[in-house]
Structure formats: structure tokens, C-alpha cells
């Protein structure tokens, strides 16, 4: 159902930044820190999206996803690995018999500059290869033109092409610039059928920020209240440190509550975050920081 854009609420940037800064003052210590770190690890979409990706690299990535740190075999696995469509079958094979999903970017990622049919074919190919989750990009040019129905129709078409695969819709908030645009794009994506809304491709700066994430979480909350359907959230790009990850989890906890604090409803799109989380977890277990040479870089 097409959303009533007249009802899109305006967003006050200063107010959002103040709220984020207040939430960042939450002091996460002791058991809640350990629990938060493990939770964050379980929510990672471990990602490689480079032109130089090879089957070998993807396989290594998948091993790391299944067993993030061999000395602590009881740690949770990450939620998914995220790759280009032509790497999906390799990832799928490497991850069989694990509970790690395969996510694939699609729809002419990262620019989205292609005809709808090309995007649909791209999506179907990734799904046929075995992708459990599709990360699509919206057409930012059309959005900024004010062609909102184009955005809605495109997302709805891709959603249909996904079949059973979960659809994450990347708004590329760095190109939308204003938080009111972020809110509007979130509303359109959710109404068009997105299972997740996601901040960024990671190819544009700024990528995920906490103010943007807070606005999207509030949009998810309002949509939930309106329709009863839960939508997931995925900030992606620029989240490298465990401390940042905990701050994001605080945003989720205090905006949407405990129901969203699981990998089913919240993901981090990241690659280097995994190791920082592991270092912090090991520090909590052993009381001392390990050198980064003890952690594999996959």
C-alpha cells in the first residue's frame, strides 16, 4: 500500500543529534557489556564487496563467519555473509550445514543505475544461486527528483522477484542528505514490502551514522504501530569498533525494545567490526587485551 506522504513527519536534525548524544551516555559495563558484545557479533553481516573478490577470499570469509575465533568455540556465529551475486554459489557451498545465511547485493549495486529489467534479472540470478537475503539499492536520482511512486513500484517489483528471500532495501542515506528524506524513503520502502531497511552501500561517505539510524528506527516503530508488521534495520559501513556497536544496540533497545534485539531484526553491515568485537570479548574473558596478530583478518 502506497504510504500517505503528506503524513511523513518532519525531522529536526538538532533534536536527533541531541537524542543520540544522550543515548551514547549509557554506560554499558560488566555482564551487560559481555552480553552486548556477543549479541553484536551474532548480528553481523560479514561483508566483502570488492571488485577483486575471488572464490578463495569468499571461502575464507565463510570460514570466519562459521567460527569467528577458534579458541572460543562457543561464541555465536555471525548472522550472514554478504557478497556479490556471482559469489553466492561459492558462499552457499562453503556455509552449508551452518546457520549462517548468504546475503547478496543486487539491482546494479552500488549505484542502482540500470533498467528495472536488468535489476530484476540481477535479483533473480542471486536468488537462483541460493541467496537467502537480497540487499537492493533504491534509485536515489528518482527519489531526489520527487518521483516517489517510481521508488515504491521498483521496490515492490524487486520484492516479488525475491520470492522467499528476505529483502533489505538500501536507502544510501549519504546521498539523500537530509533526515527528513531518510524518513520519507524509510516509509516508502517499508510500505513497498521491505523486510529490512538499510542505511548504506558502504561505497558513499558518510555511510551509517547514529542519527540516520535513529530516524530509521523511529520510522520502523511508527510503521509497526500502524500495521503490526515488524521491519528489520541494518546500518552498514563505518561501524568498526565494538564501542560503536554497543551504542547502536542501545539505540535499538531504547527505541524499539527487546523484540528487535536479535539477528532476525537487526544487523550490522561490517567487515572489520568482527575482529574488534572478538578482541573485546576475549578481553572480557581473560582480563587482558590480545595483540591483533592473534585474530585472522578475513
Amino acid at each position, binding site marked *: 500500500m502506497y504510504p500517505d506522504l503528506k503524513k511523513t513527519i*518532519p525531522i529536526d536534525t538538532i533534536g536527533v543529534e541531541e537524542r543520540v548524544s544522550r543515548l551514547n*551516555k549509557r554506560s554499558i559495563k560488566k555482564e551487560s557489556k559481555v552480553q552486548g558484545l556477543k549479541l553484536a557479533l551474532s548480528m553481523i553481516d560479514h561483508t566483502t564487496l570488492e571488485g577483486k573478490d575471488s572464490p578463495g577470499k569468499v571461502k575464507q570469509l565463510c570460514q570466519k563467519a562459521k567460527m569467528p575465533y577458534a579458541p572460543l568455540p562457543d561464541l555465536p556465529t555471525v548472522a550472514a555473509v554478504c557478497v556479490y551475486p556471482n559469489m553466492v554459489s561459492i558462499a552457499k557451498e562453503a556455509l552449508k550445514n551452518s546457520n549462517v545465511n548468504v546475503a547478496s547485493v543486487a539491482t546494479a549495486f552500488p549505484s542502482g543505475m540500470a533498467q528495472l529489467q536488468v535489476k530484476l534479472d540481477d535479483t533473480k540470478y542471486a536468488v537462483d544461486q541460493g541467496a537467502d537475503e537480497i540487499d537492493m539499492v533504491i534509485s536515489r536520482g528518482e527519489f531526489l527528483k520527487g518521483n516517489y511512486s517510481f521508488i515504491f513500484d521498483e521496490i515492490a517489483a524487486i520484492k516479488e522477484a525475491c520470492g522467499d528471500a528476505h529483502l533489505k532495501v538500501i536507502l544510501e542515506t549519504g546521498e539523500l542528505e537530509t533526515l527528513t528524506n531518510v524518513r520519507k524513503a524509510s516509509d516508502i520502502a517499508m510500505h513497498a514490502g521491505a523486510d529490512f531497511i538499510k542505511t548504506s552501500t558502504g561505497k558513499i561517505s558518510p555511510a551509517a551514522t547514529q542519527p540516520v539510524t535513529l530516524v530509521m528506527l523511529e520510522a520502523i516503530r511508527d510503521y509497526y504501530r500502524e500495521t503490526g508488521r515488524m521491519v528489520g534495520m541494518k546500518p552498514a559501513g563505518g561501524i568498526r569498533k565494538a564501542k560503536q556497536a554497543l551504542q547502536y544496540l542501545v539505540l535499538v533497545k531504547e527505541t524499539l525494545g527487546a523484540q528487535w*534485539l536479535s539477528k532476525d531484526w537487526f544487523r550490522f553491515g561490517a567487515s572489520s567490526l568482527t575482529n574488534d568485537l572478538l578482541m573485546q570479548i576475549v578481553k572480557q574473558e581473560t582480563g587482558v587485551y590480545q595483540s591483533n596478530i592473534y585474530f585472522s583478518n578475513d
Partner: protein
Amino acid sequence: MSDSKQSTEKVKDSSNGTTKPSSPNADLKLDFSSFWDYSSAPESRDKVDIQEKYGHFIGGEFIDPAKGRYMKSINPATEEVLTEFAEGTTEDVDKAVKAARKAFNGPWSKLSAKERGKYVFRIARMIQERSRDLAITETLDGGKPIRESRDVDVPIAAAHFFYYAGWADKLDYAFPGRKAEPVGVCGQIIPWNFPLLMLAWKIAPALATGNTVVLKPAETTPVTALKFAQICYDAGLPDGVVNIVTGAGQTGAAIVDHEDVDKIAFTGSTNVGKIIQKSLAGTDKKFTLELGGKGANIIFEDASIDQAIEGVINAIFFNQGHVCCAGSRLLVQEGISDQFVQKLKDRMETLIVGDPMDKNTDIGAINSKEQYERINEYLEIGANEGAQMYQNSSNLPENGYFCKPTIFTDVSQSNRIVQEEIFGPVLTIQTFRTPGEAIEKANNTPYGLSSGIWTDKGSKIFKVGQETRSGVVWSNTFNKFDPTSPFGGYKESGVGREGGLHGLYPYVNLV
């Protein structure tokens, strides 16, 4: 969320031993408590020295009270005695005023403005240097959350001294063509809600303009003022320039009535303000009064709703609602009122009430038993007036004076909870349909201290702002304090302005 137990069942996940949240529930309630609670994160009391007993600070030294009587200051979060302090009598006040007069006629008036400014700058820096000590003391003595005393009270107190220090040698530019002479001995009486900050509002402009001071902190929160006295001593401020006399109402009356005091500055309740104004009638003492308030937040339907929610939360639940300019009334446009109240309830559920020393605490202890009882009385009055009460569902600590954040809907303009200042975490909610109706309701109390206007439309801000009779109008924000900005009230909210350039006037005679 008291009735959501059935939906928040915890599930043990075998893979990593952590507790997982439950699945969504049918009634669309958000569950903020069943999973991932924050562990306690208390600020340490280490290296914070609070003496067992404090005397007055008069003429540059701590001295015993003339009558030898002491009062107790209670930590409202534990109900334990924090320290004892002198009960000031007429003799003590007289001694303090004499010391202040001697300093005014002596070294202080002979200092150049530039040297005077250096002392005020030095005090500002020393407040910063001792900020941790002052913040922890403020929280132990008054019950406010450490997050607020650390991030608001102490930094803004230092900022006031820095700001007025800058004016000390520039008064010729503040009053072009006039000469600004100090008034003399200033008697200052401050409240318990922001003990150190209110002290800064009073003492910083007084010193910068060349006055001397006799200040009485509130009887429930005297300790930071006494620590400030130590700062004055350590800063080498000439003896008698700042005198701190502790005690209750009678001590304050002795200051007001003392014939050698040239100016009275009072912040506190409107009732006491009226008494002070009566006793000053017929004298030539200058005075400023900062009194009560019943500020309204006006939310238009085109406002940024989620940010407005945050503003309303800060307006009424900041410092347990012990804020004279608190936004204790909410006026929300009818079309969005249901949604707004729902969101407000959700947000209230995430407020953490409890140990003020915990860094995660949002709402600490009510300042005193007396105030605790007064708030509870108003909760009863509200219920008897037929209003609907809603409170957040947190468990309060067993000891100490704590009050859950509370909102009242279904209230009328004539209700006592709408008209009278409660000075606690209690918000009343009314609706309106047109800007005119909002303005009328906002102005329809005996007070006129603060208001907030929330809309995305600039022209509306100016129109409504001009017709709102309050000394402070915030727009799309609330409870912002800056030393450069004047502060004060209309009607029964007070007389005179503090802060900014305007805050210099009460402390100078222009010739």
C-alpha cells in the same frame, strides 16, 4: 508495561548461553525491559571529602555558629545523614554582613577591574578543576542523577563565572556613557534544586561588578556552597568578599531584614518571594526575585514529533522536575494527541529511576522528605480531580525518596494540578485545536516563566512566541541554559533578570 508479562517470556538460547527476547506480541506493545538490562555503573565516591561538620564561612574563615546549633543534611537517596552544618542566627548574619561591608570598603573596592576579573576567572577554573568532586557532592547532597550534575550543573556553573569574569573590566562597554558602580553588600538566598548553579548565577555577576556577598544556600543542600567557600579561600579571594551563612528560613529572613544589606537576590518559591517583597517594602534595597513557574509546551501537529517527545521528556523529567522553568504542562494539538501520548508513554518506559550515583540513572531522588510528601499530595489531588494518571513501571528503591515519572490526561484548566506548581516529575496534558486556544491556555496561570513552541514552521514560532507571556520562550528545544542569555519571569514568576548583559543591571548603580 505492567500487564505485558505474558508476552515478555525469556527464552534461553543454547548456542551462546544468552537470554533471547521473545517474539512480537499481538497488542503491538514495545517491550523495553525483558532483555539486555544495563548492569549497574555507579560513580565512585573515592577521593570526595565531605566533612562531618561545617561552620559558616565568614571573613575568609570557617567559624562555629554563635549559638552553637547545627542542622543535618540528608542524602535523599538513602535517607542517611551526609553531614552537619551550622544553623545561622541573627548574630551570624550580622557578623557576615559586617565582614562583607569591611571587604567592600576595603581591599575589594580598591582593586582594578582587571584584577577583580582575574579572581573571577580563577574561581571559574577551580570549579572546572574540582568538577568531579563538586558533581558527586551535589548528587549525594541533593539526589540528582550524576549524569546531570556532571554534564549540566557543574559545567554551566563554571561557564557563568567565565562569562561574568569577562565583563569585569568591560562595564564601560556594557553601559556606554555611564559609570557602573557596585551596589555594595548583596544578600543572596538560593534554592535546593540547582545548588551550585544558582550560587554561580548569583555570585558571578555580583563579584564581577565589584560587590561583596552574603549567600545562604538551602537547608537541604548546603554542601557545594561550602565547598565553593573553600574554592574562594584557595583562590586567595580577599577575606569577606564571599561569605556563606547556612541555615533555614529564619537565617534567610535575617539576611533580608539586615539594614546594611544593599540588595537582595532570591530564587525560590512564589510564597516566600511575596514575603520577601513585603518585608522589603519601604526600604531602598534593590531586589531580584526568581520564583515559580508552570511552563507550557505547545506541540503543533506539524512538529517533528519524536524530537518534540524528547523535548517534553527533558522539560518535565530533568532534575526530577525540580526546575522552576520546567515544562510541567503539555498542550498538544488534537489531531496528533493520541499518537503523541502513546509515544510519550513509550519513552517514559525507558527512563531509569533509581540510584542517583549510577551513570545510567535518568531520574534520581526527590530532594527532601518534605518535597516528596508535597508531590504525593498533588498526585492524590490530581486523582481526586478526576484526571487519568499514568506512571512508568519501574521499581523504586526501598529507601530514599523516589517518585515515578507521571503524566495526567483528562485535565481541565481549572484543576489545581494545572494551575499550581508541583515541582516534581508530574506532567499534565491538555489538547487544543487552534493557535489562539493554545496561547490562551498557555498564558492562563498566575505564572509566566517559560514556554516551548514545537512546529516545523518558522512563521508560527514567531507569531505564537510573541503572544506567549513568559520570560523564556524556547522553540523546538527546552531547558537550554546559557550564561549569555537573560532569564526571568512575568507575573508571579518573578522580578528582574539574571544572566547575560541584563544580569549586570541588578548589581550596579549607573551614574
